[in-house]
């Protein structure tokens, strides 16, 4: 295979559907890869299996077999029979995580401290089980927790016949996977800054397509006629997004080295990415352990016009006193003035002109829902017992939410055994 065309179908579970459909219809793709995948997208994408476009997604979450059965159901509805769909599970290691891991990466405590609060533990698997499923003829592969770059790199490994230990090839391929995994973030999304960084039609963005070559270089592009842009700047921003040491970006398949990367504009919305490096993979896989850690209660109310800030400051004082009176038990309480300091907190500039409008936003992290509910209840009190000219919403939504805290640890590779089940529509 001379060039492999891999397109992105989604970057997260709430992503837009139209760009995925567009990539399926007009991207002339060999593979469409989804970092999570909505059911509506599945249907849109399935309609284009006729071209031979294969689909890889890690949307199986904790039940890849259930997802595969659902996909088979959709395929039959569309009259597509005989299509092979592979489910890859094995990432869920909740039942044995405390036996096969040692310490938490965040603070070095033993993982056993999470025994009572743990909800689930998932290891990040790599590309190998996907490659095996493709080799066995799967047109669609849906997995549990697989690292995002791996779902894009697996088709490269399969089509170009790269050995899983050939880090000189797997490294560049995983690097390209990283460029693609956040969808529109490389095609003009999460990018525009009027006057400084403008892109055409930012309301009409496409998801990226990579034209990959056997050496792990690629041209990053998008379907013609769409908004957004693929430029040196969009590619470089995405290249380092969520990267720490650029010389050691650890994935399950390889350690990627971005420090040698060449980025070059070779045409309109065409950027060539080459010379990403690779180093041997680590002996361990990362595990995310999700834990019940309590609750957050939050709400907001509003001031406007001359004196908005001084009324907001009095409201803050009232809330703080009220929390003492009702004995709020919280690990942290935060009162922000949206429009002044809610986003950058204590580093926000002081002494500027008074904003015309201020939203007072209060949040508390608590051990129990009962305590978290006190936040909304005290904000309700601000309606008739608070400051003059307080703007307030009718409290008809739940103002508490559960915290699922995530901890990280490492597990030896051979403790995670992928299980592949093949279905045929």
């Amino acid at each position, binding site marked *: 295979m001379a060039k492999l065309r891999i397109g992105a179908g989604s970057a997260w579970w709430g992503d837009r559907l139209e760009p995925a459909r567009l990539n399926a219809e007009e991207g002339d793709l060999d593979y469409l890869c989804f970092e999570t995948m909505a059911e509506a997208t599945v249907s849109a994408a399935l309609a284009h299996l006729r071209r031979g476009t294969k689909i890889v997604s890690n949307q199986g979450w904790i039940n890849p077999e259930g997802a595969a059965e659902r996909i088979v159901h959709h395929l039959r509805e569309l009259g597509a029979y005989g299509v092979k769909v592979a489910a890859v599970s094995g990432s869920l290691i909740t039942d044995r995580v405390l036996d096969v891991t040692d310490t938490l990466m965040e603070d070095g405590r033993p993982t056993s401290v999470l025994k009572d609060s743990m909800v689930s533990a998932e290891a990040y698997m790599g590309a190998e089980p996907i490659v095996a499923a493709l080799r066995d003829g799967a047109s669609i592969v849906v997995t549990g927790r697989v690292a995002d770059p791996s779902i894009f790199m697996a088709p490269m490994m399969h089509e170009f016949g790269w050995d899983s230990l050939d880090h000189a090839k797997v490294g560049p391929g995983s690097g390209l996977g990283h460029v693609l995994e956040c969808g529109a973030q490389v095609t003009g999304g999460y990018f525009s800054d009027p006057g400084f960084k403008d892109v055409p039609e930012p309301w009409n963005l496409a998801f990226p397509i990579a034209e990959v070559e056997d050496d792990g270089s690629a041209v990053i592009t998008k379907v013609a006629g769409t908004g957004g842009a693929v430029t040196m700047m969009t590619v470089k921003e995405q290249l380092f*997004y969520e990267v720490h040491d650029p010389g050691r970006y650890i994935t399950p398949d390889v350690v990627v080295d971005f420090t040698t990367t060449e980025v070059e504009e070779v045409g309109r919305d065409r950027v060539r990415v080459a010379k990403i490096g690779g180093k041997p993979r680590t002996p361990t896989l990362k595990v995310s352990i999700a834990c019940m850690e309590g609750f957050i209660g939050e709400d907001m109310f509003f001031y406007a016009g001359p004196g908005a800030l001084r009324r907001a400051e009095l409201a803050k004082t009232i809330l703080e006193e009220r929390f003492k009176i009702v004995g709020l038990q919280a690990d942290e309480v935060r009162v922000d003035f949206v429009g002044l300091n809610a986003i950058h907190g204590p580093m926000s500039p002081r002494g500027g002109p008074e904003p015309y409008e201020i939203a007072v936003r209060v949040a508390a992290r608590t051990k129990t829902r009962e305590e978290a509910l006190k936040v909304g209840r005290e904000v309700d009190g601000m309606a008739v017992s608070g400051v003059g000219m307080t703007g307030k919403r009718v409290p008809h939504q739940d103002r508490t939410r559960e915290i699922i805290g995530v901890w990280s640890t490492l597990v030896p590779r051979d403790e995670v055994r992928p299980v592949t089940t093949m279905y045929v529509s």
Partner: protein
Amino acid sequence: MRVLLQHVAHVRSGDKGNTSNITAIAYGPELYPLLKDQLTAERVKDFYAGVVTGPVERFAVDHLWVLNFVAQGALGGGVSRSLCLDNYGKALSAALLGFDLHVPESLGNHLRNHHR
């Protein structure tokens, strides 16, 4: 002359746990050396005082004009625990656009969207 970083570099931030990475990328090779010289890990740590509670480490990729800052303890405990409205710290990089740089007059025509 004193120039805000927004005229010299573009920025993006990403999250991993309680760590934020903030990337500053010079608009051109002429501007990169002064960015690298002045935007040190220490100054970035001071600049984010009160928000970033842990150490800040800097990685430079010179030929791409990239400085990548890794700031620990930047996200209020991480996305699910943070009480900040921007709990991913997506807007955290934007603060850096207001960082003051000294730019020689001779480089004025390389600045982005800068009108004297």
